[in-house]
């Protein structure tokens, strides 16, 4: 296969994703007059950001050929932790939270590489541990049902821009956009990024080049843990509450965003631009169906069907190796 045809294929593959997004937007715009209203677009982008900031960590891990399903647990635990100690130690709580996240991430990486257990299972264990700890803290502090009020103490991290008449929660979008661009640049333009892709394609060949594969793998899991912690922290000013249940439903949706964007679970393919598109598709499906006034019960069914259609459309143009 010559270079031109593979480049062409890559272009077709990317345009199919965009095309599907456009079709989705047009369909919803026709289906409901409220869909393209500015306030609704703000709402889509806010929900999109909630999903995206939690999906970025797992993107690193999947690119490196492993799996991490502990994000939701880590984010939830860190959120409650920060909520509990914020009144006591102030902004230092944020540093503690992110360190805890990075710590659980490193632990994932270390157990995965040293004990040689499949990463899916290690992080499944970590998901149980962190979720259990999150709920335990919440029960002990008697905040399981109502959460911990943040009372605007972290608003500085989600600043509102005076000229734009949008709610504070929209500011999460700046973080999501900033993080995505940063990680995209790192993955595409730096040696670190290149090596992550290399490990994802073939860890054993990368090892033969004298690269410290284990080190990079631990680093990737630590990074994923830290990114999840940042997400858990940002949800606090977003909700203005430290909620012990908010992240529960996000466990598999984040992985869906990554895979739907076309990052193969086999590793070595894909990237952050794909995760962004995957998360956008999921958020638009969710919002569009709600805005169209679909019965809450039918919502689930239609949502599932559209995810299938999206996946079929998207995977047409993408070579994901063996479809597992």
């Amino acid at each position: 296969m010559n270079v031109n045809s593979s480049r062409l294929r890559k272009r077709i593959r990317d345009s199919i994703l965009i095309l599907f997004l456009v079709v989705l937007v047009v369909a919803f715009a026709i289906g409901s007059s409220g869909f393209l209203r500015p306030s609704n677009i703000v709402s889509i982008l806010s929900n999109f950001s909630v999903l995206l900031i939690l999906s970025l960590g797992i993107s690193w891990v999947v690119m490196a050929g492993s799996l991490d399903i502990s994000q939701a647990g880590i984010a939830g635990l860190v959120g409650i932790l920060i909520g509990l100690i914020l009144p006591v130690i102030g902004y230092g709580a944020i540093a503690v939270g992110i360190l805890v996240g990075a710590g659980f991430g490193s632990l994932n990486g270390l157990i995965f590489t040293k004990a040689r257990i499949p990463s899916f299972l290690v992080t499944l264990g970590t998901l149980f541990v962190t979720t259990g700890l999150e709920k335990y803290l919440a029960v002990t502090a008697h905040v399981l049902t109502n959460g911990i009020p943040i009372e605007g103490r972290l608003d500085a991290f989600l600043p509102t821009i005076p000229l734009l008449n949008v709610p504070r929660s929209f500011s999460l979008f700046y973080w999501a956009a900033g993080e995505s661009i940063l990680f995209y640049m790192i993955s595409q333009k730096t040696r670190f990024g290149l090596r992550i892709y290399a490990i994802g394609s073939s860890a054993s060949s990368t090892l033969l080049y004298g690269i410290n594969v284990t080190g990079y793998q631990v680093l990737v899991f630590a990074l994923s843990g830290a990114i999840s912690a940042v997400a858990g922290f940002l949800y606090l000013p977003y909700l203005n509450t430290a909620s012990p249940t908010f992240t529960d439903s996000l466990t598999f949706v984040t992985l869906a965003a990554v895979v739907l964007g076309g990052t193969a679970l086999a590793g070595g393919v894909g990237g952050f631009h794909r995760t962004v598109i995957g998360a956008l598709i999921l958020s638009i499906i969710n919002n569009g169906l709600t805005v169209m006034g679909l019965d809450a019960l039918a919502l689930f069914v239609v949502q599932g069907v559209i995810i299938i259609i999206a996946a079929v459309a998207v995977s047409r143009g993408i070579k994901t190796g063996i479809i597992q």
Partner: protein
Amino acid sequence: MIVLFSVASPGFLSVRGIIVIQLTLVPILLLAVGETFVLMARSFDLSIGSIYILTSVFTALFASQLGPVAILVGPATGAIFGLMNGMVFKFGRIPSFIATLATMIIYQGVAQIVVTGQYYLFATEESFRAIAISFVASVIPLMMVWAMILTVFFIFVALKTKFGRVVYSIGANYEATRFSGINVMKYQLAAFAISGFLAGVAGGLAAAQQGGASALPYPILLPAVAAATIAGTPITGGAGGPHRALLGALMLAVLTTGLNVNAVETNLKTLIFGIVVIIAIYLTTDRRVVHLIK
């Protein structure tokens, strides 16, 4: 572990304790054995938790008209849902992870639509409930007997039949299996159907045991996946098997019951559960078989 809990709490090895272990074991075991077939073929089934709920709802719905025969509704509908998973995965040519994530959402939604208006579907007929809760030798609930018969049958299928060998071989090397002239699709569809079938059996038995069903999401997916995998079935396929799932489910059921009997706080239980999962996987992962530690 059993010794540990027995020492910690005298109630653990009582008749009641043994019955509770079995009741905890049955759904986890059935779901884990089904999931194992899908994992062996190197796919993933996220929808078994939803199938469990949906089939229990269907079973409860028919129990008043069909009586004890309604117990067959679970496995029948479950197998159909499983087959649908396989078809979405194969004909849609999308990763099974995404396919079953979508059907997981769909089945959960359908269950809620079916139950609309009532919060709980009662199915209290004695003859129907007896299928699950009458006792053999006064310590073994009948549902345990059904679960064990099916487990033994599927262990036999996996280890001793051509069908089982092909499913392993699909997981170990998909391309090679395909090129050796085997209709791979047929086997993959069957693996998903088995997974749905067993989730349906579990759903039907749950409706009988509890005397009804609700459409509320029930957190059984992750424990079932944990049970399927902690005793050595890798998610990269080609190894392990239902006999491992039996061991895994047994460990988790004993653990859960033991923690319950010792009145450990619910959420600390989840935490301990996680640690045990990691330790168990560490001990049981056969590194000669699992070539790809991903």
